């Protein structure tokens, strides 16, 4: 275990967690609009695209010059909450 200045890393991590919480809080309304789709949101948390498969979403973001992580985040929105992995 090491200790060092991790302020920037912590900021990135907290930002990612905050965005994840937003997905959690808005999941039901997203599910009503975009069932079984990959949904991309920008930094203002506006939906910018939705596709039924990840490669199509990826191509669309590339075409718009939007980078995952930097400009947009994405999640798969599904009514199926159960897995047997």
């Amino acid at each position: 275990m090491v200790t060092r200045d991790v302020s920037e890393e912590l900021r990135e991590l907290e930002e990612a967690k905050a965005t994840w919480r937003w997905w959690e809080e808005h999941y039901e309304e997203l599910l009503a609009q975009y069932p079984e789709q990959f949904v991309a949101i920008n930094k203002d948390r506006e939906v910018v695209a939705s596709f039924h498969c990840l490669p199509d979403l990826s191509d669309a973001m590339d075409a718009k010059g939007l980078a995952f992580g930097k400009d947009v985040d994405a999640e798969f929105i599904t009514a199926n909450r159960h897995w047997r992995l």
Partner: protein
Amino acid sequence: MISGYFSARWGCPFVWTRLAIPGRPPQPVPFLIDTGSSTSIVHAKDARVRLNLATDAMEPAAWTPEETVRRRGVAGVALSRQMEATFEFTHDDGSLQTIAETIELGAVDSQQLPSLMGWDLLRRFRIELEQGTGTVTLLPQ
């Protein structure tokens, strides 16, 4: 102590780590805690969205035989790509714990699945899970 949470939408325990793979800087990735998985795997959506890997890199045809592994699960056999990885955990007191391991990259058909933290990492921790209180903690042994 590393704190995670129960996902409201999935009802499953998750923990965040910063994951670095060759050629990519560490990025935050949420992992479902899966004590039934012997290895950890980052599935296609997280690989694309969080690690910024091209979807072409998730096609098994692009992988060498040496890095391609076959894993059997309840749904059948799945191919994945094994690579070196560094997991950086942030403890609640701000300290870091770095673990060098391998990780598997799921093929593009894993795109709907969450990434999994398996026993290769979890064996290093005492795990406390209690959904009623929302407790998800990993304690170093």
